[in-house]
């Protein structure tokens, strides 16, 4: 099998007396979509926040490209090329698409913005993802639909050569057509060689795009499955805890 680009080993994280992650392992491969599933409170968000550097883990190791790294802040994560697209879309409504995509990493020349360069890169990125629904890259984000916002958020993540993109419930609030759009986008990300980690409650979506499925149950990774070799019922069993971790290929 290919070398995983990112590998988490024995990750532990607790908040005071509550231990949320109890020794979790997770791997993601370049060019593959790894789905992370689990019921509410299983620890998915906590796991992701650690990867993003927002909430560092208590213990455990993170290996990136075969060497151990420390993710102490969002800057550490993005320096490695780890980008997170959050569920509640971290976009500013009052800014336009280009401004949002470059927020925090604007192109400047003598301390002032080089709007031309930013606009060019933004529209090139959107074009590389075959985004067809956006009329102008200078539209305010407030005027976009839910699917378009999700698209912008994902485009923002891949703007600067991201190597690992983590999508937190990207289709949760979308209609059928828009969900399809976003899933196509996820496939295209993987085709470009990005390791995608997809968090979702929607098994139909997961079986459509994911190559691997990792199931979290009460802070423990109970199964790491290949989508091609598993069934919906099996995944549901792991999520709800009716199937035991004994069957996991840890």
């Amino acid at each position: 099998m290919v070398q995983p680009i990112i590998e988490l080993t024995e990750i532990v994280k607790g908040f005071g007396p509550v231990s949320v992650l109890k020794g979790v392992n997770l791997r993601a491969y370049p060019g593959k979509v790894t789905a992370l599933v689990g019921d509410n409170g299983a620890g998915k968000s906590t796991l992701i926040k650690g990867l993003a550097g927002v909430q560092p883990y208590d213990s455990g190791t993170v290996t990136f490209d075969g060497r151990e790294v420390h993710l102490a802040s969002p800057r550490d994560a993005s320096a490695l090329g780890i980008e997170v697209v959050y569920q509640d879309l971290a976009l500013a409504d009052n800014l336009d698409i280009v401004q949002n995509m470059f927020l925090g990493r604007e192109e400047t020349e003598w301390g002032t913005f080089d709007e031309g360069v930013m606009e060019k890169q933004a529209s090139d990125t959107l074009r590389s993802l075959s985004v067809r629904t956006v009329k102008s890259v200078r539209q305010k984000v407030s005027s976009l639909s839910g699917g378009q916002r999700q698209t912008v958020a994902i485009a923002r993540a891949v703007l600067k050569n991201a190597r690992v993109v983590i999508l937190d419930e990207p289709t949760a609030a979308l209609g059928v057509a828009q969900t399809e759009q976003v899933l196509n986008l996820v496939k295209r990300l993987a085709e470009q060689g990005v390791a995608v980690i997809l968090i979702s409650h929607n098994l139909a979506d997961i079986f459509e795009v994911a190559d691997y499925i990792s199931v979290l149950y009460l802070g423990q990774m109970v199964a790491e499955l290949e989508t091609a070799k598993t069934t919906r019922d099996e995944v549901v069993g792991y999520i709800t805890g009716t199937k035991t971790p004994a069957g996991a290929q840890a």
Partner: protein
Amino acid sequence: MTSTQHDGTETGHVMAPTDVIGSGQEGSLFDQVRAWTQRVRGGEMGALPAIGGFVVLTILFTVLVGIFRPAQYFFNVGNFAVLAQQAAPLVMLGMALVFVILLGEIDLSAGVTAGVSMGLFAVLVSRFGVNWILALVFAFAAGLVIGTLIGFFVARVGIPSFVVTLGLFLGLQGVQLILLTGTGSGNTSIPLQVPEVLAIQNANLPIWGGWVMLVVALAISAATSFWDRYRRTRAGVPNRTISLVWAKLIIIAVVGGVAVFLLNQNRGRAATQLGDQQIGGTTVEGVPMVVPFVLAILWLGTFLLDRTKYGRYLYAIGGNAEAARRSGVNVVLIRWVAFIICSGLAVLAGLFLASRVGTVDATMGRDLVLSGVAAAVVGGVSLFGGRGRLMHAAVGALVIAVITNGLGLLGLPSGINYAVTGGVLILAATVDALSRRRSGGART
């Protein structure tokens, strides 16, 4: 989509089948005007209601003063110069407040910050004989200290700015009173005896000074426009049709030219004709000294807000602070600095006010802050944060100054003035809320 204006170097990608993402810069002048109309209908009205209000009020007061007070003139050069001087402190304070209002915050103490800093200035100069430039440095330092203090409590500790600045609003009035009565005399009013400071609001530029100011403004505007176009062309993205640049320059030249020309006319008291001799009469001509100060701050502040990371992050935090934080923006620092800028500019507003009034007293600046907030909101700056420009606050301040000036000329009691200004503020806030709803409703 027309691509006639596409003057990028890579002409190849224009034809590419996937190239359907525009930049809003393509198309003829007509297309641009139509797109702008759509944005306005969509709720992005900016300063339009305020500019409309300014024009309507100007006509209204011209007519009303003409009918009821034939001896007075609203629509004449003398009154316009007075209007500019009356409005200057308010314009400055409105612009100061924009920096914190963009964050969705408020600084209720901005007015008394202006008062206290000028109180310090007056005390240092009049009672301690300090050099006026040094005293002015102390006054600005006092403003920056107050801003740092507010920023610490709001951005660092996390107390709502409303509470912190309300506390300072009261506390600083106490400081002001102690400052001015500190030496024991019952008199809490100190006359300003610094000719250089008094000149700001009482002297005028020489005739040529006004024209130089206009030429500099045109040159800066043209230079930035063409620099932007050069950089866009270099990056290979479309530019707006160049006729828009000419239109902007022509508007500045014509409006500015008319204003400078009129203000350069003699608006002094006419001489009395006695036989062959001209007796008495005064010559007052030229653009008021305060105008270039205000324009310079307006330009600098707009540059900061539109073209630098600091300004962009200010808007981003006002729109979605969490998004900014996750993008690696130092939210605490940006917010902190916004309060420092606000207090610093408030000192300048105080300077203009003191220069106009000629004295500093214990209540100076107290009533100015709410007018300043009103100016920003009337001009189209959203109290919800994230939307608005310095220009908006300046236009809003002019609207409020016109109301005060016009009602004054009509000889109405000041109670009417407060009531009308308050009414206009509520009207403007309603327009803000409705346009927000509309631009939010554009989501499908």
